C-alpha cells in the first residue's frame, strides 16, 4: 500500500466517522463539529485527488465560513444546550438505516469506475504540471466557465438580498 493510499484511507475513515457521528449526535453543536471534521478530512482527500486549490477553498469556505454560520445560528437560537434529542425513535432509525442502506447500494452500482467515461484529454495531474495548481483551475474558470461564474455572483447577490429580507429586524 502506497503512502497515498494510506493517507486516502485514513482520511476516508475520518470523513465517514465524522459523518456518522454528525448524524447521530444528540447535540447540534456536536453534530456541527463532527461535520467540520468530515469537511477537513474531505479537504485532505481533495489534496490526495489532485485538487489542492479546491481543498484550500474547502477549508476556507466550508469549514471556515459556512460551518461558522451554522454554529452561529445554533448559538443564536440557543440550541446548544442539552435538550430532548431530535433523533427519531427506533422506527425512524430503522427506516433511515434501511433506506440509506438501499440507497447506498444503488449508488454504489452506479459509482463504479469501470463505467466512468474515457478521459477526455489531459488528466488533472498533467494540467497542473503545465499550468500550475491554481492556473489549471483558474484559466478555464474565467474563459470557458465564465458564464456560470458570473451566474454565481448573481446567485450570491440574490442570496444576500433574500437573507436580508428575511432576517433583517426592520425593513
Amino acid at each position, binding site marked *: 500500500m502506497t503512502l497515498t493510499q494510506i493517507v486516502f484511507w485514513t482520511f476516508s475513515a475520518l470523513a465517514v466517522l465524522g459523518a456518522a457521528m454528525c448524524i447521530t449526535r444528540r447535540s447540534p453543536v456536536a453534530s456541527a463539529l463532527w461535520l467540520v471534521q468530515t469537511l477537513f478530512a474531505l479537504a485532505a482527500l481533495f489534496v490526495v485527488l489532485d485538487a489542492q486549490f479546491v481543498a484550500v477553498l474547502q477549508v476556507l469556505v466550508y469549514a471556515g465560513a459556512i460551518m461558522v454560520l451554522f454554529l452561529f445560528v445554533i448559538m443564536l437560537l440557543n440550541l446548544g444546550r442539552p435538550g430532548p434529542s431530535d433523533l*427519531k425513535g427506533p422506527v425512524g432509525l430503522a427506516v433511515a438505516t434501511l433506506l440509506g442502506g*438501499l440507497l447506498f447500494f*444503488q*449508488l454504489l*452500482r452506479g459509482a463504479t469506475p469501470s463505467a466512468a467515461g474515457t478521459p477526455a484529454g489531459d488528466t488533472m495531474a498533467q494540467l497542473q504540471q503545465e499550468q500550475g495548481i491554481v492556473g489549471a483551475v483558474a484559466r478555464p474558470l474565467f474563459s470557458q466557465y465564465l458564464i456560470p461564474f458570473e451566474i454565481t455572483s448573481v446567485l450570491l447577490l440574490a442570496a444576500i438580498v433574500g437573507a436580508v429580507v428575511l432576517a433583517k429586524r426592520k425593513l
Partner: protein
Amino acid sequence: MPGALQLLWLVPALPLAGFVANGLLALRRPPAPPAPPARRAVSIIGVGVLLAALALSVAIVLAFQRAGAAGPLVFPYWEWLPVGDLHVTVALELDQLSAVMLLVVTGVSSLIHLFSVGYMGEDPGYARYFAYLNLFVFFMLVLVLGASFPVMFVGWEGVGLCSYLLIGFWFNERINADAGKKAFLVNRIGDVGFLVAMLLIFAHMGSLDFQPVFAQAPKLLAPGGAAITAITLFLFLGCTGKSAQIPLYTWLPDAMQGPTPVSALIHAATMVTAGVYLVARCNVLYALAPVASAVVAGIGALTAFFAATIALKQWDIKRVLAYSTVSQLGYMFLGVGSGAYAAGIFHLVTHAFFKALLFLGSGSVIHALHRAYHATHSHEDAQDMRNMGGLARHLPWTSKLMWVATLALAGIPPFAGFFSKDAILSAAFSLGDVHPLWYVYWLLGLLAALLTAFYMTRLMLYTFHGPNRTGERESAHLHEGPWVMTGPLVVLGALSVAGGALNVPALFRGHAWLEHWLEPVTAVATRLRPAIEVPLGTEWTLVIAAVAVAALGIFAALRLLRPEELVPARLAPAERGFARLLWKKWYVDEIYDFLLVRPLVWLSREVLWKTIDLGLIDGAGVNGAARLSQVLGWVGSRLQTGQLGFYVVLFVGGVLAVLWTAVR
C-alpha cells in the same frame, strides 16, 4: 267502375269527420252538463255521419254486386311506408267478405248510435262519447276495409284504443279506468302476435298486401310447414287478444264497465269479432296450416265451454252477456278453425244482431233501473240481477225482444242463431273423420250450447220474471226508454228473427246465400281444404241433437231456478262451494294477478329498479366509482401529513423506486 265505389274512402272518412267535430266540441270548456242545442248538434253530427256512412255502404255494396267483380277491388290512396322492398300503401279493399262486414259494422253501429242518443242523453261527456264512438267506427271500418296487414293493423289497434277510451269513459271511477287499461294491455299482448305475424309474412313473402300474400302463399309456403304454422299461430295470438279467447279473454268481462251501448257495439257486435274476421280473411293461410287451424278450433271450443260455465253464476246482467259473448266467439273460432269460414262469418253476423239486441236490452233495463234509483236517491247496483225481477211488466218491449234474442242465442229454430250455430257444429263434427279430436270439439260445443240455453234462460227469468226486487218506491219509476232506444231494439229483434235467412243451408232447402256470396273469398281455401260431406242422416241427427240440447237447457233452467227465492243484492248471502268458484270466474284473474302481474311489478320495482339500477349500476358502479375516488383522495390527503420527516421518507422511497427502474 260505378261511381259509388269510388266513394269508398268516404265511408271511413265520415265517422272520422264526426270524431273531429265532436272531439272539438268535447274539448270546449266547461264540459259539465251540455246545453240542449249543443247536445243536439252532437247528436246530429254523431248519428248523421253514421247514417250517411250506412247509406253509402249500402250503395257501395249494391254497386259492387252489380259490378259483379270476381276479385276484390283495391283502392290505393297514398304510399305509406315505401322503404326499399317494403311497399305499404294506404289502400282500401272491397270484396265480398269486407262488404258483409261493412254492412254489419255500419248497420249495427247506426242502430247503437241511435240508441245512445237516448241512453247517454244526460251524461256530461255526451260529446266526448260520440266522438269516441265515431272514432271507433272509423277504425273498425279501416280494419275491415284495409287492403294490407299494416293498414288493417291500424284499425286493429285503433279499435283497441277506442275500446280503452270507452271502457274508461267514466274515468273518475278507478274500476273503470282499471278495466280500460286492462283491455288495452291484454289486447296489446295479442297485437304483438299480429305484429310478429306481419314480420314473418314479410320475411317470407316480401309483401304485406293481402292480394299478393294470399296469391303467393300456396306457392311460397309448404303446407303445414313451420313458417305457415308460425304465421297463423301468431295471427291467432292476435285474435285471442282482440276476440277474447283463452288465455286472453279476461279483459272482456271487465270491459262491461263501459256504457252499455259500447258493450253492445264494441264488445259484442263488432270489435271482438275482428279476430274471426281476420282468420276468415286469411283463410288461405289457415287452410295451409292444419295444425294451426286445429288450435284455432280447439281454443274456440274450449273457450266456448269454459266461458259458458262462468256465465252460469254471474249476477251482473252485463257480465252474463259478456261471458256469453266470449263463449259465442269461441263458437265462431270453432267454425273458422274447422274450415267453415262462411259459417263462422255467418255466426258473426247473426251474433252481432242478437247479442247487440241483448246488450241494448240490458242497457234498457239498466237505464230504467238507474233512473229509478236516481229518482229515489238510492245507491243500489243497477246491473245486478238480484235487484231486478218481474221487469216484464214495466218493460214489455224490452222483455219480448230479449226473449227473441235469447232464443236466437240458444239456437232454437227458426231464429238466426240456430242456423249459424248448427253450421259450425256440423262442420266440426264432420272433421271427426280426420282426427277424433274434432269430436271432442264438437262435444264441447254441444255442451256449451246446453249451458248457453241454461244461463240465458236464467238471465231472462231473474230479470223479467218472478217478483220485483228493485224496491217498493223504485218500482214506480220503472218504465220503457224513449223511442230512440226501443226503436233500434225492434230493428235488431227483426234481424235476430230473420237473420238466419241469410244462409239457410241446403238441408232446409235454402240457398246458402252467404256461403255462395263469400265463395270468391274462400275459393282457394276450399280448394286446399275441401269440406267433408256428412251423410244426410248424420246431419239431421246433429241438428236434432243441437236443438234438443238447447231445449233441454231452457227446460232445465225453467225447472231448476226459483226467481222468487232470490233476495236483493245487498241482502244476498255469499256464494259457497262450486258456485263460488264459478262466481269468482275460476279465479283466473286472481291467478293471472298472482302469477304474472304481481311478480312483474315486483321484479321491476325491487329487482330491476331498486337493486340493479339504483343499487348496482348507479350505486355501486357510478356513485361507487365517484365515492371510491373521493375516499382514495381523502386517504391521499391524509398522507400529506404536514410532517417534513414523512415527506422525506416518501421522497427517498421514490428515489429508490426510480433508481430501481433505471437499472433493473
